[in-house]
C-alpha cells in the first residue's frame, strides 16, 4: 500500500490551473471571486424586480383605486413575490453567495474554496432557481399570491391567485435554490474549517468570516425544513396527499383531502423562517463590525464576546420560531416558552450593539461612505430590534400581529438594516474588486436618500399598526375605527418609498460609472489589517496569493496599537517587522 504523504494546505505549492479563455475566466469560472460577482449581479438584478414590485404595492396602498393595473389578485402576487425575492433570492444569495464567496478565501488566506467546481455549480443552480421563479410571471394565472409564507391550504386552492402553475413554480424554485445553497454552504463551512492559512486560528478570524460561517451552518440546518415542506406541499397539490390539508371546502366544493394539519406547515416553515432572519443578520453583523473597526481605527471591542454572541444567537435562533405563530391556534402553552426564548435572544443581540458603540468610543472616526452606512445600520437596527422586543412578548403580539406594525418592524430589522450593511460593505470592498472607489458625491446622495427615506417609510408605518390596519389588505375601504388621516399617512409613506426606490438607481449608476471611471484607490486604501487587502496582486488575481500563502501572526484588529508607528498592523506582518515609535520594544500587545 502506498502512503500518500500529507502536506498541509498552507504548504502546498500553487497548482491552480489558471483559466485562459474568456469563457473559463468569466462565465464557467471556478474562481470564487468571479462566482461571487456572478452571484451578486444576479441577486441585485432580481432584487431590483422586487424593488419595483414594492413600489407598485405602495402605489395601491397610498392611492387606492387610482391605478387600474393593480387589482386584488395582482396586488397579492406583487406582495408575495416582493417578499420572497427580497428574503431568499436577494439577501440570502447576496450575503452568502456574493460576500461569502468573495471574502472567505481572501480573509482566511486560502487560494479558493475547497470545492471550486461545486462552487460554480452552486451559482448556476441558483441562476436556474431565479429563472424558474421569474417564469411564474408568464404562466397562466401568474405567480402565486399566497403571501411569502405560502400558508396552506389557501396557497394551493383556487381562491388564491396563482394557485396552480404559480405555486408549483415557486415551490420548485425554492427547492432548486436550496440545492444551490447546500452546494455553496458545504463549501463555505469546509473551506473555513480546513483551508485557513498557517496562523489563522478560529479566534483570529475577522468577524465577517465568523458571521458568514455561523449563518451558513444555520442555513444548512434550516433550509431542509423548507425543502421538505415544499415537497410535501407539491404532493398535496399534485398527488392529492393530505400533509397540510384537513377535510375542507374550496369555494363551496368539498375536497378529497382529510386529516392534514395546516399548523404543521407553519412549524416547518418557521423552523426555517426564523433562522433565516439570522442567516441574513449574522453576516451583516460580522461585516459591519469590521467596517466599524477599520473606519474608526480601533480594535473591535470585546472580540471574544462578539464571537460568542454570534454563536449564541445562532443557537437560540432554532428555539424561537413559534413566536411567529402566537395567534396561529397552536397549543397556547407554547406561548410561555417561545416568549421567554425570544426575549433571551435579545441579550446577546443587545451586547453586540453595545460593543459596536464601545468600538466607536474613543475611536478616531472617519466618516467615510462605509462608516456612514454602518452608523445608519446601528440606528435602524436598534430601532427594529427594540420593536421586536415588543412583538416577541407574546401578549403584545395579540393586538399587533398581522398589522402594519409587524410589517414596519421586520422591514426595519430585516430589510433596511442588512441593506445598510450591504451598502457599507459594497462601498468598503469595492476598491478590492476594481481598484477604484465608488463616487463619494453620488454616494452621499444615495446614503441620505436611503437612510432618511426608509425612516420616513417605516416610522409612521408602526402607527398604522397601532391603529389596527391589517397587512395584506388590498384596500381598507371605509371603516369606523380608522380615521381618514390614516390615508394621508399612507400616501406619505408611498411618496417616501418611491423616492427611496429611485435613489437606488443612483447607486446602480454609481457602481457602473465607478467601475470604469472611478477614482483610483491604490492598494489597501482603508489601511485595513485583514488579509484580503494584503494580496500579492491588487486587485487579487486567480489563486489570490501568488507563490506563497500568507502567514498570520495576529488577530484582525490591531489598530492604533500604542507605541507602534502606523495605526494598523496587518495580520500577516511578523512581530519583528512592526515599526515602533520609540526604541523601547514592548511585547506585542496585539497578539491574541
Amino acid at each position: 500500500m502506498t502512503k500518500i504523504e500529507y502536506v498541509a494546505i498552507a504548504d502546498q505549492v500553487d497548482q491552480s490551473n489558471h483559466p485562459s479563455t474568456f469563457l473559463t475566466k468569466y462565465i464557467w469560472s471556478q474562481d470564487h471571486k468571479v462566482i461571487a460577482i456572478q452571484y451578486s449581479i444576479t441577486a441585485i438584478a432580481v432584487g431590483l424586480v422586487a424593488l419595483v414590485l414594492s413600489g407598485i404595492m405602495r402605489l395601491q396602498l397610498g392611492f387606492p383605486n387610482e391605478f387600474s393595473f393593480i387589482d386584488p389578485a395582482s396586488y397579492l402576487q406583487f406582495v408575495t413575490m416582493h417578499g420572497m425575492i427580497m428574503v431568499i433570492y436577494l439577501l440570502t444569495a447576496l450575503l452568502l453567495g456574493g460576500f461569502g464567496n468573495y471574502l472567505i478565501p481572501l480573509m482566511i488566506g486560502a487560494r479558493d474554496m475547497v470545492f471550486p467546481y461545486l462552487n460554480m455549480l452552486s451559482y448556476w443552480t441558483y441562476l436556474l432557481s431565479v429563472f424558474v421563479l421569474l417564469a411564474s410571471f408568464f404562466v397562466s394565472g401568474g405567480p402565486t399570491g399566497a403571501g411569502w409564507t405560502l400558508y396552506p391550504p389557501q396557497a394551493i386552492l383556487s381562491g388564491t391567485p396563482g394557485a396552480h402553475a404559480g405555486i408549483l413554480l415557486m415551490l420548485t424554485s425554492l427547492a432548486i435554490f436550496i440545492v444551490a445553497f447546500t452546494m455553496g454552504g458545504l463549501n463555505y463551512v469546509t473551506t473555513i474549517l480546513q483551508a485557513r492559512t498557517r496562523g489563522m486560528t478560529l479566534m483570529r478570524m475577522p468577524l465577517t468570516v465568523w458571521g458568514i460561517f455561523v449563518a451558513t451552518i444555520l442555513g444548512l440546518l434550516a433550509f431542509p425544513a423548507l425543502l421538505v415542506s415544499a415537497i410535501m406541499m407539491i404532493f398535496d397539490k399534485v398527488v392529492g396527499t393530505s400533509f397540510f390539508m384537513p377535510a375542507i371546502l374550496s369555494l363551496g366544493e368539498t375536497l378529497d383531502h382529510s386529516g392534514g394539519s395546516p399548523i404543521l406547515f407553519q412549524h416547518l416553515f418557521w423552523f426555517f423562517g426564523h433562522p433565516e432572519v439570522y442567516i441574513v443578520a449574522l453576516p451583516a453583523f460580522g461585516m459591519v463590525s469590521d467596517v466599524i473597526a477599520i473606519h474608526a481605527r480601533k480594535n473591535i471591542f470585546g472580540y471574544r464576546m462578539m464571537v460568542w454572541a454570534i454563536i449564541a444567537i445562532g443557537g437560540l435562533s432554532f428555539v424561537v420560531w413559534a413566536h411567529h405563530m402566537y395567534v396561529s391556534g397552536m397549543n397556547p402553552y407554547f406561548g410561555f416558552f417561545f416568549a421567554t426564548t425570544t426575549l433571551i435572544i435579545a441579550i446577546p443581540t443587545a451586547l453586540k450593539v453595545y460593543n459596536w458603540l464601545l468600538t466607536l468610543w474613543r475611536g478616531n472616526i472617519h466618516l467615510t461612505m462605509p462608516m456612514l452606512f454602518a452608523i445608519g445600520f446601528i440606528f435602524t437596527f436598534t430601532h427594529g430590534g427594540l420593536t421586536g422586543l415588543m412583538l416577541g412578548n407574546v401578549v403584545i403580539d395579540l393586538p399587533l400581529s398581522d398589522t402594519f406594525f409587524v410589517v414596519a418592524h421586520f422591514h426595519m430589522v430585516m430589510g433596511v438594516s442588512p441593506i445598510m450593511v450591504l451598502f457599507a460593505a459594497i462601498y468598503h470592498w469595492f476598491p478590492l474588486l476594481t481598484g477604484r472607489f465608488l463616487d463619494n458625491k453620488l454616494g452621499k446622495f444615495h446614503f441620505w436618500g436611503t437612510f432618511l427615506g426608509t425612516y420616513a417609510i417605516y416610522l409612521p408605518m408602526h402607527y398604522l399598526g397601532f391603529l389596527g390596519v391589517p397587512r395584506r389588505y388590498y384596500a381598507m375601504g371605509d371603516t369606523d375605527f380608522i380615521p381618514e388621516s390614516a390615508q394621508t399617512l399612507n400616501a406619505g409613506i408611498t411618496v417616501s418609498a418611491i423616492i427611496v426606490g429611485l435613489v437606488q438607481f443612483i447607486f446602480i449608476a454609481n457602481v457602473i460609472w465607478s467601475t470604469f471611471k472611478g477614482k483610483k484607490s491604490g492598494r489597501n486604501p482603508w489601511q485595513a489589517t485583514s488579509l484580503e487587502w494584503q494580496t500579492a496582486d491588487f486587485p487579487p488575481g486567480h489563486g489570490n496569493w501568488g507563490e506563497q500563502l500568507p502567514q498570520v501572526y495576529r488577530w484582525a484588529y490591531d489598530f492604533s496599537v500604542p507605541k507602534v508607528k502606523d495605526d494598523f498592523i496587518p495580520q500577516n506582518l511578523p512581530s519583528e517587522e512592526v515599526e515602533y515609535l520609540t526604541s523601547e520594544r514592548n511585547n506585542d500587545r496585539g497578539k491574541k
Partner: protein
Amino acid sequence: MTIAFVIILLVIATLVFHFISPWWFTPLASNWQTIDNTINLSLWVVGAVFVVVSLFLAFVIIKFRHNKNRRADYEPENNKLEGWLTLVTTLGVAAMLAPGLVVWGQFISVPENSKIVEVVGQQWHWSYRLPGKDGKLGKTAIKLISEENPFGIDVNDINGADDLLVKSNELHLLIEQPVKVLLRSKDVLHNFAVPQFRVKMDLVPGTVTFVWFIPTKLGRYELLCEELCGIAHFTMRGYIKVVSASDYQTWLTSLPTFTQTLARDTANIAQGKQLYTGCVSCHGIDGQGNEAMNAPKLMGLSRWYLHRQLSYFKRKIRGQNSDDLYGQQMSAMSALLPDDKAIADVSAYLSSLTAIESIPVSTGDAIKGKAFYKNCSYCHGEHAQGNYAMNAPKLAGQYPWYLKRQISSFQQGIRGAHPADLYGKQMILMSKTLHDERAINDVVSYINSLTNVR
C-alpha cells in the same frame, strides 16, 4: 458630523411624532386593559433605550470624530463593563417579559362563567352559531355542509337540534358577559380580529381554536379577517354588536334553531305565481324584465338571492338611498308582499322559471373584460352562474344596463352601504377594482358573452 446631528434630529422627530400622532390604538372595548398596560410599559422601556442608545451614538460620533493629532484607544476587552451591561440588559428584558407572561396566563385561562359562541369563517364571510337551551353545540363535519345545512351540523346529534344559527355577518354579544369564542373554518386559515377588543386568533380548518374576552362597551365593532385567505381577504368583514340584556334577548328570540332551518322549505310555487301578478307590469309576465321600465330579469335567478333582495327592499335595507330612484320604487312595491312567507313563495316561483338566455349584446370589449372578471369569478363562478356557498348571485343572462347600473351603484355606495346589507360592503370594495366606466362596460360585455356562448 452631519450624521450625528441628523440622528439627534431623528430622535427628536420620533418623539414628537409619537406624542402628537393621532394614530393610536382604538379605544378599548373589552376587559383587556392588561394588554394595553403591558404595551405601554414595554413602549416606555424600549423607547428609553432607543433614545439613550441613539443619543449616545450621536455623542460618540461628535466627540471622537477624526482628528489627525489623536490616536484611537487600544482596548480589546473590558470584562467588568461587559458583565454590567449583560446584567442590566437581562434585568430590563425580565422586567418586560414577566408582566407579559402573567397576562398571557390570563389570556389562556377562560373564566368558568363564560358563554360559548361559535364563529365560522369561510372565504370570505362570517357566520355564527350559538348553543340552544342545552348549552351545548352539536357536532359538525365538513362533508355535511350543504345548501340546506350551511353549518354542516350533524342531524343525528341531539345537541345540535336547538343550536341557534346566525347566517349573517353580524353577531350580537351581551355586555359584561365573558364569552369564549370557538373558532372554526370551513376552508382556509382566517383570523378573528376586532381591534377594539385587542385579542385575536386564527381559525384553522380541521381544528377548533378559541379566544375569550368580556365586551365592556355598547357599540358595533368591525370584525376583520387578519390572516391572508385569498383574493377577497380584504373584504372579509363582519360586525360584533355589543348590546344590553333586553336587546340581547330580543335578538336571541329572532334566531332560528337548526331544526327550524331544516323545516323551512314550505314555499308554495302556485301561491308565488298568484302574488307575482302584481309585478308583471314592470318585470314582465315571465319575469323576463323590461329595460323601458328599468326592471331587471328575474326568471331563473336563485331563490335564496331573490329572497334576500326582496326582504332587503321590504325591510328598507335596499332602495333607501335618495339617488336610487328605481330602488325606491321597488321598495314601495315590496309592500305587495305582506310577509316573509309571501317573499319565499314568489322567490320560489321565479326561480322555477327557465331563463331565456338571449339578451341584447352590450358594447364593451369582452376580451379586456375577461381580465377584470377574473376577480369576480372566485365568487360568482367562472361562467357567472352564481354560487350559493359564496353567497354570490348568478350574473349571466342579466341585462347589461342593469348590471352596469348596479356596479356603479355599489361603487358610489348607493347600494350595499346599509349596515344590514350583509354582502353589500364586500361588493362596494370589490366593485372599486373597476376604475372607470369603460372597465365596467368591458366586464359587463364579458359576462354577457358567457350567456351567448351557452
